[in-house]
């Protein structure tokens, strides 16, 4: 039932081509919970940095976010629906393979995409993400009511203009319904994990990288909210993707 319904949700995305194309593999940027491509990536300087590096950028607003449809049924936010959206988008854009860079919830989905369709992913970057269950201790029937790091995030983003609090709550419940499993590890695809040194939501980032045979980069002084815009993060990713 939900599979059929999933077809009714439209995910909207942007496709930015550099003026001087370099690497032929596009970079897929997956934003975090409660934000969108413009806020998470473009405003944080990523679109411009990748454009300058000659990289084509594909940037979806994940379902429930930004310009995309925002259903309020949590069954429509299971990770496999997001992965199906992303694969449909890649097919529509005629893209075989991407480098995928996720942040927070976007990292979880990058992991799922790479596990489901490893042939479509060349390299993967997981930002603001670790082994910790992001929803631990949160009452998802009433997110934002408690004091967990996720409650704090939820309260901030639910108040942002353009966001639909009910859709975001449904999204949280859908994600939580399939808790993240770091097993089996993601091997065979070069992987990097990046996290702010003060990011409570990215506990276990280094461990996750190690399990997958990847590298871990820590951004000093940064937390979950502000690691994404740091120059050190961008530079680390540009180097990793170019290598």
């Amino acid at each position: 039932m939900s599979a059929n319904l999933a077809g009714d949700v439209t995910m909207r995305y942007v496709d930015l081509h550099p003026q001087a194309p370099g690497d032929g593999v596009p970079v897929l940027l997956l934003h975090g919970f409660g934000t969108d491509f413009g806020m998470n990536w473009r405003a944080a300087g990523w679109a411009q940095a990748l454009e300058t590096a000659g990289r084509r950028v594909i940037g979806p607003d994940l379902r429930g976010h930004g310009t995309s449809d925002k259903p309020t049924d949590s069954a429509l936010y299971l990770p496999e629906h997001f992965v199906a959206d992303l694969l449909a988008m890649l097919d529509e854009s005629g893209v075989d393979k991407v480098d995928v860079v996720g942040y927070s919830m976007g990292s979880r989905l990058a992991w799922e995409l790479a596990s489901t369709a490893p042939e479509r992913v060349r390299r993967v970057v997981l930002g603001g993400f670790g082994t910790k269950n992001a929803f631990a201790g949160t009452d998802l029937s009433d997110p934002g009511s408690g004091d967990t790091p996720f409650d704090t995030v939820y309260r901030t983003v639910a108040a942002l203009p353009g966001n639909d609090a009910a859709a975001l709550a449904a999204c949280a419940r859908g994600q939580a319904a399939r808790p993240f499993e770091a097993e089996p590890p993601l091997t065979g695809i070069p992987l990097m994990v990046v996290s702010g040194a003060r990011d409570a939501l990215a506990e276990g980032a280094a461990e996750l990288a190690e399990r997958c045979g990847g590298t871990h980069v820590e951004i000093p002084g940064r937390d979950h909210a502000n690691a994404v815009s740091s120059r050190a993060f961008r530079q680390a990713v540009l180097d990793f993707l170019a290598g």
Partner: protein
Amino acid sequence: MTELIERADTAADTPVVELSMQQAINRALSDLLTEDPEVLVFGEDVGTLGGVFRVTEGLQKEFGDKRVFDTPLAESAIMGMAVGLAMNGWRPVPELQFDGFAYPAIDQIVNQVARMNYRTRGATPMPITLRLPSFGGIQAPEHHGESLEALFAHTPGLKVVAPSDPADAYSLLLQSVRSDDPVVYMEPKARYWERRPVQLREPSDPIGTSRIVRPGRHATLIAWGAMVHRCVQVAELAAEDGVDLEVLDLRWLKPIDAAGLAASVSRTRRAVVVHEAPLTAGLGAEVATLVTENCFRDLAAPVQRVTGFDVPYPAGPLEPQYLPTIDRVLLAVQRTLEY
């Protein structure tokens, strides 16, 4: 389901540059000469000198004197030559140096350019764009401050456009020159110099689309060319009084965006049309009629016109009293608000 909402690439996503309208038109001409080897730019002083307003500066140097050339001083022959060049497969972009000098060429423009495609039943298209520095506001001598838009808009077979800012000047010129119909492209001289950050964009709206420059709720100010800027000034002042004015830049004076006018005025319920040309039989009458035809039931007040007076365009010192002033526009707005 997925849906692409933005595709940016080299052409569409050019960097923001600071340009005057002069420079934006120059860029457009340069890009047109580059993209289409059939584009020719000619007129009085457009070559070596680069135009009396420097709009064609550097183009002859870049593209050679076969693509960008000076003609003798004869407006009728400039337009007649454009007809012949078009018949021979070229895409002429003639300049007539000033609005008032278009009158000697009216025979060629009206009798020949405008109807050649019609009279030959499509055998000889006229993809001619006449660039015409137009309107007043620079205290120029007589015959250098005329507004001919009603005359051109009244001529079957012509399309007429007047940009109001550098970004529009660029994309509307691309659109005009690429059109296979003859277009009179009226450049508001008074807006030539102000520099603005501009993203040079490919035209995205179809020919005949207006643009909301400033959204508002209480009344729509309708203008084109330099009067758009005047209306924006008025709207900013009105905002201090708690009056929220929408400014609609008509852009295309033929075809006129009747739907765009209707959409705006049926929301705001009041309209004031502002132009430099004299009142009687000016294009404001056409705009007012379109608004009345399409929004009669929504209108809270009759459409107001603020225009030049029915007098010959005056000498410099009187120009500020002839052109629609801020107070005259504000008074017209007040009349619609208090009707």
